[in-house]
């Protein structure tokens, strides 16, 4: 093919420009460390890497959410630990006070300590986090959850709990409303409660009782009455007699799927009410227990009243401890779930980052050797350009 002077010149120039472009591209790749400099270099990889960066950012946000939930649950857990210790101490004091060797005065001293523990309990329920927000008032986190008026304790929070997103489609609540922790403590054995009438004259003590046949138990309110000093009968709320017999201390009384026993010696006219359990609050339990301890014992009947009150209080405290344990267990499983999710997120992030690096990061060894090759080619092109441009027949004129 015929070569024109202008064509030869243009071609060498163009070739050198191409080489310079390639060199510049490689150089920019090396200085940025990225394989893809503009999205059109590899549009599929570019759009995939954008998605990956977004997913990573989202997962990292979930991690921040998890940390927050973890902190809040740990804070709640530590508050509940204190609640548990206080309630345990109240329980020990109750047992101690129930002892027949205690005098009115020593029981009074125990009651004083118990009331201090009650104050502490209220403070724990009204605990605030580092930002001044109440941790046990549900979502009304700027409302003091528990107030006291005399012996009435009122809950002002709501029954909601805040949900935190800790993973794609994975949520966890970051606390419990105070209503659940402190106010929803079932009295009695959790199903029903046996309470002596205040007018009882005998020394009858009720046990906690239990359900033996859940299908037969109908949650009606029953009344156990001593007809004479030795016979009793049980009537339901509409006056129908469901059980009757001769009273022996400690005998099991069974009717309507439940059983319980009464010990001691109730006298004619003494009554015990068997009613379905209701919610009571932990503060009232402690308050009522303290009040019972403050009563002086004058006769067997008042001792029986004390014993009944202490038993009922201890039963309530056990329910409360059970509640706290339940909630702490729940917190434990939430913490474990968060841990799992954080690990899962971390693994996903690691996988994505590896894939992202494969997509967009530069293979330096390859790039550097490409750079040397391109530089060598450019040098050769420049050298040959200078040589060929010097060749001219006119040089020999």
């Amino acid at each position: 093919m015929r070569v024109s002077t202008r064509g030869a010149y243009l071609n060498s120039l163009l070739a050198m420009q191409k080489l310079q472009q390639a060199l510049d591209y490689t150089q920019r790749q090396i200085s940025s460390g990225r394989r893809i400099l503009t999205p059109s270099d590899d549009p599929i990889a570019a759009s995939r890497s954008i998605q990956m960066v977004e997913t990573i950012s989202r997962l990292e946000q979930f991690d921040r959410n998890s940390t927050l939930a973890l902190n809040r649950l740990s804070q709640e857990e530590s508050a509940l630990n204190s609640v548990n210790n206080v309630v345990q101490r109240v329980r020990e004091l109750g047992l101690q006070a129930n002892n027949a060797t205690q005098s009115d005065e020593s029981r009074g001293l125990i009651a004083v300590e118990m009331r201090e523990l009650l104050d502490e309990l209220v403070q724990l329920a009204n605990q605030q986090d580092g930002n001044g927000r109440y941790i046990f008032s549900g979502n009304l986190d700027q409302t003091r959850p528990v107030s006291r008026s005399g012996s009435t304790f009122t809950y002002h929070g709501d029954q909601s709990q805040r949900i935190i997103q800790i993973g794609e489609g994975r949520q966890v609540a970051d606390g419990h409303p105070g209503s659940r922790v402190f106010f929803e403590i079932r009295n009695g054995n959790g199903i029903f409660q046996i309470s002596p009438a205040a007018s009882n004259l005998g020394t009858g003590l009720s046990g906690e009782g239990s359900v033996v046949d859940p299908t037969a138990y109908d949650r009606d309110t029953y009344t156990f009455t001593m007809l004479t000093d030795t016979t009793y009968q049980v009537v339901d709320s509409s006056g129908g007699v469901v059980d009757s017999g001769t009273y022996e201390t400690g005998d099991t009384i069974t009717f309507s799927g439940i059983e319980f026993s009464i010990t001691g010696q109730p006298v004619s006219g003494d009554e015990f009410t068997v009613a379905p359990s209701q919610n009571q609050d932990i503060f009232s339990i402690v308050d009522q227990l303290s009040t019972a301890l403050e009563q002086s014992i004058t006769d067997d009947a008042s001792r029986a009243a004390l014993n009944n009150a202490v038993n009922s209080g201890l039963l309530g405290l056990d329910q409360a401890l059970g509640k706290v344990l339940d909630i702490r267990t729940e917190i434990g499983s939430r913490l474990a779930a968060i841990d799992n999710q954080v690990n899962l997120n971390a693994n996903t992030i690691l996988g994505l980052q590896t894939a992202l690096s494969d997509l967009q990061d530069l293979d330096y060894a390859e790039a550097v050797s490409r750079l040397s090759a391109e530089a060598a080619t450019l040098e050769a092109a420049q050298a040959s350009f200078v040589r060929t441009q010097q060749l001219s027949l006119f040089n020999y004129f």
Partner: protein
Amino acid sequence: MPDLLGTSLTGMLAFQRALQLTSHNIANANTPGYSRQVAEFTSRIGGGSGQNYVGGGTQIASIKRMYDSLLVNQLQTAQTGLARFGALNSLSSRMDTLLADADTGLSASMQNFFNAVQDVANDPSNTTIRQAMLGEADGIAARFRTLDQQLNTQEKEVSDRLRLAVDDINRISGQIAEVNDLIAREGVGAQPNDLLDRRDQLVLELSGLIAVSTAEQDDGTLSVFIGSGRSLVIGIDAQRLGIRGDEFDPTRATIVYEGAGATAPLDASLSGGVVGGLLEFRTRMLDPARQTLGQTAAALALQFNTQHQSGLDLRGNLGGDFFGIDPPQILYSSGNTGSPSAVAQVADLGAYTGANYVLEFDGAGYTLTREDSGEVIPMTGTGTAGDPFVADGITIEVGGSPAAGDRMLIRTGHGAAASMQTLIDDPRSVALASPTRSSASLGNIGDATISTPITVDADDPGLLTSAVIEFTSATTYTINGGATVYTYTDGDPILINGNEVTINGSPTAGDQFTIEANLGASGDNGNGLLLANLQSLGLLENGAISINESYGQLIAGVGATAYQIQEGFEAQDVVFRNAEDAVLSKSAVNLDEEAANLVRFQQAYQASAQVVNVTKQLFDSLLAATSR
């Protein structure tokens, strides 16, 4: 003897001219479009004597232009292709970088915004975090506006460059007509080589602006045609192209043919060259990108607003509009004879496309046509305020007094991103709480629990009214003590005032559950979680595409097109270089060749001159022989 002198003289004259030609070639070694010229020698017929003929020297029969019209045509075609891809490539790569770059793109702002929504959902009563979320909301709105503005700048640039290109086309076509004139004056059969080169060069330049076809006429003039056979140059007359504003949008430049008396729109028929590349970029990349960007912005704004309106703010009020965005733009045709009017709204994100539509009145009714596909979209409704037209997720209400043939352009996505802004500046007005909450009375004896209410109808006027569900037996309940007794089934949804709750477990007569306005719940993030969720919630295309995916598709689409264009550009570059090489190889000057010719013609001239010397000596010998 005089014959001898005459013969040598023809040689000297011919070689002198050949040397002159070589010098012309050397001088034009670097002139673009120059075709080297070669003298063709033929011998002169001499006088005869008897049967023996002796020639009469040499002559230059013609000065040939080394030229191959096929190669030149190929070069013009290649130039058209290269210029088209060049214009496309420079614009598309910038757009690609703009949209997908981590610093200028939408992706990072979008992620930051939704992360901020999650942060605020984590800690809803913290006004500092609320403020930070509003900051990120401003950020995403500003990013939408900036991106649209940058795309708008590109659109303006396309218009400006079209204007310049049309000026160039008019200038070049005028010059071609002038050269035609000069060539025609040379007469039929003349070979004004340098004029022909100049004309070819002008056509090549014109090919870089627009695809042309040419036809050489008998009188030596060249006719130039563009588009679908419209003449740009005929003989010595050049037609002009002009720029007009678009029928609907005066800022959008379109090319018209300014023929005798009337102008005709040309855009659709033009291809190739810078003009073809610019027009193609505008319809193939810029319009869809602005539409998708607007669609994404509208989807985010409208859906976020809807969700935000179903939450309670820190003051206990239902949320207002969070983002502001303009409704679809209505542009009226400059050719309208009546005065139609229309108002459009995005009503259904699932069917909403972001596309442009032309609404045309035919004297009796309206027809809606999608602008990019030309597809007629069926509309339901009658176009009144009470019963608007509904098509592709848009409602259109028409009015005014339209005349038959009146047209309106409805831009449902184009430019929407430019109007995006946050309407809330008080952090306490961000509605993060659920509107209602539920609770079980602490005095309940049964073990039944109530779920958190789900807002199923945020527009229910009684949404925030308290309602008490009271059980009258283990299996029946009343609402607010009303007379109606409902039957309780464990776990069945109960719908009250737009709230849905479920009650599980065994209630006892007298048990109460309350649903009430979620006042004071500064720690509630119920609505905040739903807001954060919108990022990955399917909204567009009947719920198949989330806001994130919509933008991701835009980036991927633009990236893929930009990639194709870049590949096309590189391929076309090779085609052009080959065509150019072929032309240069055929036509351009080789200095070594000219140097050799210089030597050759110089020697031939010297030899011819030597013949004069020999003639002189012969004459001298003759004189010497006869002078005695």
